[in-house]
């Protein structure tokens, strides 16, 4: 509840323009990109500086008001849905690039900078910030850090956590902490930087980040391989990696996805194939050339039925179009799309895809699977309609089974989207009860009152894992 007194105090900090309690503002901050989650905040506030964030959090602490940090609201775990009301704190007014340090290869930014802007800025200078979540045109770096976003290049380059060197963050009580720095080595105490990356806005509000940059790869080359047999595709993946080649992209699409994409985009994909792999390597031209030829040989030896190599970078873009079209193609088929990020050790990709298909058949659901084969991160994607409660109920059962199968195969319930509200009931399956208690202890140390993004990560009610299926 925002009383007139609280309203006056918050307005005094940011002015009327940047603190809103009108129905429009509240409704338009009641959701994010996660289907079927919605909850109204009591107010929406747009701080423009670390100082303002501190003042806002002091007031929130005084009155025990929940605060949900938000960038563009493009996450897929309902992490920015204000499920307990309170304030949504939108960080997009803090959107300046503070420093590009060419000597140290670092970029220091405010949290509201778009990920795409970071790519564009550093690539102009011949530098590279690899994390590339699909939403990067609109996602903010603050959101990426809070969620530890992944992307297509995770296998070779890692994810957001591998590129955050230092942070400035405001704690629930309004105090500022600075972690890390322009340092590639730093073991002074617990690694609070890594702890904050992926903390989903539950520990602190990130107000500044120093990112690690690497040299921009000189060239890139793409190819595609088709398979009539899922296991052959899996064999290709493990052979490529065991021979010491790490492609920058190693994407997988199953038959259902191929069919849907082809129907939408008409780009000549073979609908009868069980799987296709989209592979790209980057680096010095000679290395890229050599790697791609070796990969081609491996594809052939492990049972690919057809291969196509892009001769130029532009052709590579065309070859990879199938993967880029996947989301659009799937999104058009049915009104609601539930995109999961089940992840298994990459050796278990074929068994996992088979499990997903078996479970989809069992519950009579349309689930298409694509994803990042190299790092075992799959996106089983359910095409459904939120207005059909009976089908949604079956979907919940199916995903429950899919998560259980992933755990059995040594995997996890979420590889890159985060726990939020959506996965909270399943967290314990992966981490166990004791680990959750430790996490809750950490949460308490940062935010004793529990005002930062309450209800996220730790579920109010837990799912019991069903046995005997």
């Amino acid at each position, binding site marked *: 509840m925002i009383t007139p007194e609280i309203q006056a105090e918050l307005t005094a900090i940011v002015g009327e323009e940047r603190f809103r309690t*009108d*129905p*429009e*503002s509240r*409704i*338009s*901050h*009641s*959701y*994010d*990109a*996660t*289907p079927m989650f919605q909850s109204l905040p009591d107010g929406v506030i*747009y701080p423009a500086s670390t100082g303002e964030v501190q003042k806002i959090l002091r007031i929130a602490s005084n009155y025990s008001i929940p605060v949900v940090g938000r960038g*563009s*609201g*493009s996450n897929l775990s309902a992490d920015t849905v204000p499920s307990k009301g309170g304030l949504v704190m*939108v960080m*997009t*007014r803090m959107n300046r690039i503070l420093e590009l340090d060419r000597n140290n290869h670092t970029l220091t930014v405010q949290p509201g900078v*778009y990920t*795409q802007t970071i790519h564009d800025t550093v690539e102009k200078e011949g530098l590279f910030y690899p994390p590339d979540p699909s*939403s990067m*045109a*609109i*996602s903010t770096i603050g959101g990426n850090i809070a969620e530890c976003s992944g992307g297509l290049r995770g296998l070779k380059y890692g994810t957001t956590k591998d590129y955050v060197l230092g942070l400035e963050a405001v704690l629930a009580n309004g105090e500022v902490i600075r972690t890390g720095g322009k340092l590639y080595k730093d073991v002074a105490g617990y690694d609070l930087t890594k702890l904050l990356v992926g903390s989903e806005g539950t520990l602190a509000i990130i107000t500044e980040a120093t990112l690690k940059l690497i040299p921009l790869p000189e060239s890139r080359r793409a190819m595609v391989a088709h398979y009539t047999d899922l296991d052959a595709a899996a064999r290709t993946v493990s052979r490529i990696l065991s021979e010491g080649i790490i492609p920058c992209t190693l994407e997988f699409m199953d038959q259902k996805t191929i069919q849907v994409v082809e129907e939408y985009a008409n780009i000549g994909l073979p609908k009868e194939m069980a799987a296709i792999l989209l592979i790209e390597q980057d680096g010095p031209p000679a290395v890229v050339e050599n790697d791609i030829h070796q990969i081609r040989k491996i594809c052939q030896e492990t049972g690919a039925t057809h291969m196509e190599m892009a001769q130029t970078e532009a052709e590579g873009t065309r070859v990879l179009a199938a993967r880029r079209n996947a*989301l*659009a193609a799937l*999104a*058009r088929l049915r*009104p*609601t*799309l539930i995109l999961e990020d089940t992840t298994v050790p990459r050796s278990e990709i074929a068994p996992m895809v088979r499990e997903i298909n078996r479970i989809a058949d069992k519950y009579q659901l349309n689930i298409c699977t694509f994803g990042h084969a190299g790092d075992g991160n799959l996106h089983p994607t359910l095409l459904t*309609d*939120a*207005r059909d409660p009976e089908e949604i109920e079956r979907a919940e059962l199916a995903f429950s089974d899919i998560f259980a199968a992933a755990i059995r195969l040594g995997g996890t319930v979420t590889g890159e989207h985060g726990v939020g509200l959506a996965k909270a009931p399943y967290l314990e399956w992966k981490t166990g009860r004791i680990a959750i208690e430790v996490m809750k202890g950490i949460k308490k140390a940062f935010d004793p009152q529990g005002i930062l993004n309450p209800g996220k990560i730790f579920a109010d009610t837990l799912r019991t894992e069903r046995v005997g299926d």
Partner: protein
Amino acid sequence: MATAPKKNSSTLPESPWEAVGKELKLTLDQDQLTHCMRCGFCLPACPTYRETGREAASPRGRIALMKAVNDGLMSPDESFADQLKYCLGCRACESACPADVKFGRLLEQSRAAIHEYAPRSRGVRWMENFFFRHFFSSRSKLQLAGALIAFYQKSGLQRLFHHSGLAEVVLPEHLRQMDKVLPYASSKGVVERTGTFIPSKGGSRGRVGLFRGCIMDVLFAKTNCNTAELLSAAGYEVVIPETQTCCGALQAHGGDEKHAKELARANLRTFKEAEVDWIASNAGGCGAQLVEIPHLLRGDPEYAEEAHWFADRIRDISQLLVAGSPLPLGEVNACVTYQDSCHLRNGMKVSEAPRRLLSAIPGTRYVELVESDRCCGSAGIYNLTQPVTSMSLLDEKMEHVKESRAEFLVTTNPGCLLQMKLGIQRAGLEDRMQAVHLVDFLAESIRQGAGKRKIPSDQNEK
């Protein structure tokens, strides 16, 4: 009539906003509302989101507001209506949307409910009624307006108006500038100038019905004539049916769906009778409205099927020229750039053809304009209803235009063309650059080929 008509006779009289809410629940397309998966991919494409940084002023936010009304989470009110008015309707969000949500339709459905039931002053209601129902669709009123504007422009009245200082008293700055850049109006449209039939000059590519538009034919009649000539040169025979009327875009965008439907039916009958293979539009805004006719007339027992016949034949002039016989283009030594018409790009999905035509002109150096796919702020009558945002978008656009160093700024829609002329004047670039319709630029290139005339090419210029 200042209040909403009562639809039912329940005990308590319904408030106008309650009526808007009820109507929205009935008319909003449920599938489209559900299809929005809130991914946010539309946000960077939206000019008003970029301008304000507010989610409520983004396509995703606006759909959430509509859905909230639909789900009974919120009642529509003045600020809901304002938010929908603030949208440019450029539909750049549709091109960015992975799920192919038809935002433009949701917007029109919402505006229709507001138009029908929301409280408005008597004056506003009268004005809308006059312009939507009696002006754009009336050939005689348009011609009279053309004659009056022409008299004002040529008699010295316009000069007197500006020189006397009266203009400064009665008009805000952007309208004074707009008045100055307005081309010479005329009561003589394309039919009065060329007749209703122009034979093909090279080959038999088919029979094209020319859609002349309402404003196009008063302010840019010469562009319509050039359109007919280009089609003829590209191997089409051209008919200009006289009974055609306004496309209905302004009415539909403004919420007057009923009248837009009447206009759609009239145009459908006209072009069906003319037995054409194609219907050519040279205004992105009109073309995008004309392809929507099957949606507009869905469920119409008499016209629903015919509407597909009509929409399947709609082509932008640039598409027909690319597909036709090669044009005898002559050399134009100049640097040109191109500003997309939003509705041509996002509504008709045409973006390549105009660029291909410009690049094909000998001697012409084509430079791509940075953010050419972003709305210029003209957006129908947006520059009149939301002048602050419109001018802010325009001034930002002109920064990119300036950097392009082009001598010709080409576009494909009368509203955009006027806005570009205004932008050039506001940026003080009149001596280095002119805004011109694609058709006029191509026509000039042909004349250069025939050695008849020299640049400047803008036929409607003063």
